[in-house]
């Protein structure tokens, strides 16, 4: 956001401390979000497929469409806010244009893949769930890496 990107952060110790705290919290939130999803849905593609689409052989019911919608709706909100906050700090870092654009493009693509894969899983089957799982993991890893990169930059007073 503009107020995060308007001043040179290394000159403003208060703003710098606030953003260091925010980045630490967001990185922790991303790790916790990955762990929570791992507990809820499982840690392998098969477990995700079983949770979302069900498995007759193991007597697992598929997730209801309302529960699926509710889960995506709440997840997406937190993830969009996290993206806005981390990307706004990362964009200020002065990394090369290619790297910054790559980061933004990949993050947005993976964040779009997560809900789209889930929503269409009832039509395209397990491929949708795997697309969703891939998007979810890639987005979280990118946010953790972008957050860590910005955090190290801030601690070294690079920007």
């Amino acid at each position, binding site marked *: 956001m503009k107020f995060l990107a308007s001043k040179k952060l290394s000159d403003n110790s208060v703003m710098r401390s606030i953003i260091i705290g925010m980045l630490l919290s967001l990185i922790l939130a991303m790790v916790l979000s990955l762990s929570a999803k791992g507990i809820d849905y499982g840690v392998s593609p098969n477990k995700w497929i079983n949770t979302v689409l069900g498995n007759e052989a193991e007597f697992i019911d598929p997730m209801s469409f309302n529960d699926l*919608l509710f889960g995506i709706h709440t997840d997406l909100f937190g993830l*969009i*806010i996290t993206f*806005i906050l981390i990307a706004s700090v990362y964009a200020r870092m002065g990394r090369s244009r290619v790297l910054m*654009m790559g980061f933004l493009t990949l993050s947005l693509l993976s964040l779009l893949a997560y809900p789209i894969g889930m929503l269409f899983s009832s039509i395209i089957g397990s491929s949708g769930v795997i697309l969703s799982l891939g998007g979810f993991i890639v987005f979280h890893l990118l946010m953790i890496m972008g957050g860590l990169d910005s955090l190290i930059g801030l601690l070294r007073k690079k920007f």
Partner: protein
Amino acid sequence: MNFKILQFVTLAFSTLVILQASLGTLLFTRLVGLTPHDVNLYYGDKSLHGLLEVILPHTLFISIALMAVLHFLAFIQTIDPRTKQKAIYSLFTLFFLDQFSPLLISFGLEFFAVIKIIAFIGFQVALLWVWGMIFRQTLKLIK
């Protein structure tokens, strides 16, 4: 090349926010319904605690989201300030009406079911309008 990527990034982000609003709409339609009778039936049966469980996270998160969305609008110089004011006041007014109508319905004021539906649809339309303006002006600025 950079223009194409920036165009894509803006489009992808707009798609994400519109997708989120559409998911909310779909969820509302499936859980509550879109007629005053459905709305009265759904919210009339809810306890105050049940209503607060929905209103509290929405109030908290939508206020942050509106701040993030509207701050983009504030920094675009090519949009008339009056249009910006209209967008800001419409979004916040519709948001408050949308969120707090269920409380009034549960207190027996059934007329607010109509207000709730109008405010809910109005909020989605106003949000689309604001994103449309931001997207169009951003593309002009990038060019």
